[in-house]
């Protein structure tokens, strides 16, 4: 039975994240995590990688930040390492060079977005400049990738067991008789994928997260399910209301309106150097 138990962050790890201890505000940390996951997701699409590997990478990525500060490792490198590692775990390994090229492209695009924001008269068209085959960019990124992969393994104690939520969602939708509602299935599936940008997969067991996705779906689509105690549908799946509600909060926070400054802020903090600089500039002021 212990095989089914994935590692989850402990209470003290949640209350005091390593990045938070280094002075990084919680909302900025969450934003950076979400952005790191978006990069993983984009890289996965460009590499035509299987979604199981991408989702596994994102979950490992989130676990990592409960034992490591963003001052020590950048979200770009760790995301790249997580995707590389997860692809091996899911038996669909990637070529290092492919992954590095794709991340290079994504990082260049991020830099471009940033430049565009700081000087509005810059060229709005993004043009990718491929790296040279034997250039230092490649070897730097390769070293970073190898180190990131090893650090993820080491800091997670080599326990890289991940349980994905999709199978559980199908079962639960069947139990609730919602499989005939295609819109409900799609929406719940989408919430699960969006939740990968939040730390919930490192905080709660799968049944809780799946229940939250179903709760959000049924509320949005005005589908009524038994929800008055003692007959609550989430009790069927051993999910506690407080936990389900909390996961819903995490997911819905992703969709809140953000101003341009907030959006661009994370783009400029992909590396640990930028995070350090931000900390020096902003934490020193206080």
């Amino acid at each position, binding site marked *: 039975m212990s*095989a089914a138990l994935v*590692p989850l962050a402990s209470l003290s*790890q949640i209350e005091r994240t390593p990045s938070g201890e280094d002075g990084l505000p919680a909302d900025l940390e969450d934003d950076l995590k979400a952005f790191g996951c978006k990069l993983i997701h984009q890289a996965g699409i460009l590499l035509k990688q299987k979604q199981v590997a991408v989702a596994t990478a994102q979950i490992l990525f989130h676990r990592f930040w409960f*034992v490591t500060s963003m001052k020590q490792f950048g979200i770009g490198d760790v995301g790249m390492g997580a995707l590389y*590692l997860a692809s091996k*775990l899911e038996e669909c390994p990637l070529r290092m060079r492919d992954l590095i090229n794709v991340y290079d492209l994504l990082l260049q695009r991020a830099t471009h977005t940033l430049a565009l924001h700081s000087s509005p008269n810059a060229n709005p068209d993004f043009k990718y400049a491929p790296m040279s085959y034997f250039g230092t960019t490649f070897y730097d990124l390769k070293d970073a990738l190898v180190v990131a992969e090893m*650090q993820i393994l*080491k800091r997670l*104690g080599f*326990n890289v067991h991940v349980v994905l939520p999709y199978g559980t969602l199908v079962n639960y939708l069947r139990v609730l008789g919602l499989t005939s509602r295609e819109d409900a299935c799609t929406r719940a599936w989408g919430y699960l994928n969006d939740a990968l940008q939040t730390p919930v997969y490192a905080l709660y067991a799968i049944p809780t997260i799946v229940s939250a996705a179903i709760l959000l779906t049924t509320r949005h689509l005005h589908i009524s399910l038994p929800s008055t105690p003692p007959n609550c549908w989430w009790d069927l799946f051993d999910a506690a209301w407080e936990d389900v509600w909390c996961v819903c909060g995490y997911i819905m926070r992703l969709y809140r309106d953000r101003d341009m400054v907030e959006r661009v802020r994370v783009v400029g903090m992909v590396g640990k150097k930028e995070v350090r600089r931000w900390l020096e500039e902003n934490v020193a002021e206080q």
Partner: protein
Amino acid sequence: MSTTSTPTRKRSKWDEDDEDDEAFRLRQQILAKRRTKSKSVKPNDATPTRRIETSEPPAVRLPTRPRHSLYVPPRTYHPTITPSRSVYCYERLNQIEEGSYGVVFRAKDKQTGDIVALKKLKLDEEKHGFPITALREINALMSCRHDNVVGIREVVVGDTLTQVFVVMDFIEHDLKSLLTVMPSPFLQSEIKTLMLQLLSAVAHCHSNWILHRDLKTSNLLMNNRGTIKVADFGLARRYGDPVGVGGMTQLVVTLWYRAPEILLGATTYSTAVDMWSVGCIFAELLLKEPLFQAKGEIELLSMIFKLLGPPNTTSWSDYSSLPLAKTLALPSPQPHQFRQRFHYMTTAGIDLLMSLLTYDPGKRITAEEALQHDYFTESPYPKHPDLFGSFPSAAAGEKRRKPFDSPSAPARAADYKLMTEFDAP
């Protein structure tokens, strides 16, 4: 029927479930009590101690069902995210063996004093980051915890990123060296116990979607309490349904234990390859030597053809569609020779062996089915693991005691006789 020895009985799969169940129930009781306590204390907190005793309603109905299903354990049951410890938590004792994958040491946990096996992974010349084979091995061991699978304790690291050690339970023997030093083969009752243990381990791995792909006697460890543990998951990998998306390598399983479909170049294979190896191990336990001691693949195939009789359309309908089938000339048809090779086996025993060593992977017996085979319920019954003999452990550096020499005749007897003769009048 118990197949596990007493000291480890607690860790049997079913016991654990019961314990969980009981833990839930216990928690439930405590929670229920707490609830009634807090309720009862509120209205009158002047004499709280007495209140608890008296205010307990006589019929506190405890829920008969645990609050959580067994499939959704409480949040607190999940392990936390814990980084690897340092290898300096262990004290190195002696080297056990060295293979292509790395070196194995016997070591002592400095905190608990437990004796463990430390397997150092070779990571020096890795071009593709952390080797996928090591990853598979660690993952397989972590997800296949079972009484008859060698237990992984943790993975520790050294000073640099290239030093990684897998910490496993130390087991005294491996079955192969045991078979070579044992003065007499295992008894039928002992073989049954060993086979039941092996089959339950294999069934457990398969139900967790893991193929071992290198089952052989040298990868079966045995402790001095009659329990065997499947080890060395270096070739193990996860399989899915459908099997082997993206193709799987044929470079698996040590030759003597390799299933015919792999030998004939099948790119998709499944749990049946492990079952063939189990069949070879079963035969090896009976014969006290490996069943097919072939030098090459062709020789192995001809040995298999000789024992089983060459495959035909009824015994293996897919034979002709296998990639390498065309390159082979089949010998003339001949009946199988199991009976000639295994004289003293019962009919049920021969039947189990033949079900394991079956050509068609689709017809080959599964581990779950084999566990229910009649062979295990007929006399002689499986021996309790506690009744197994123990042996000096080569891995722990123990020497075999010198066999007793029968006492020789008194050293000077001849002289004495000579003397008496001489002295005789």
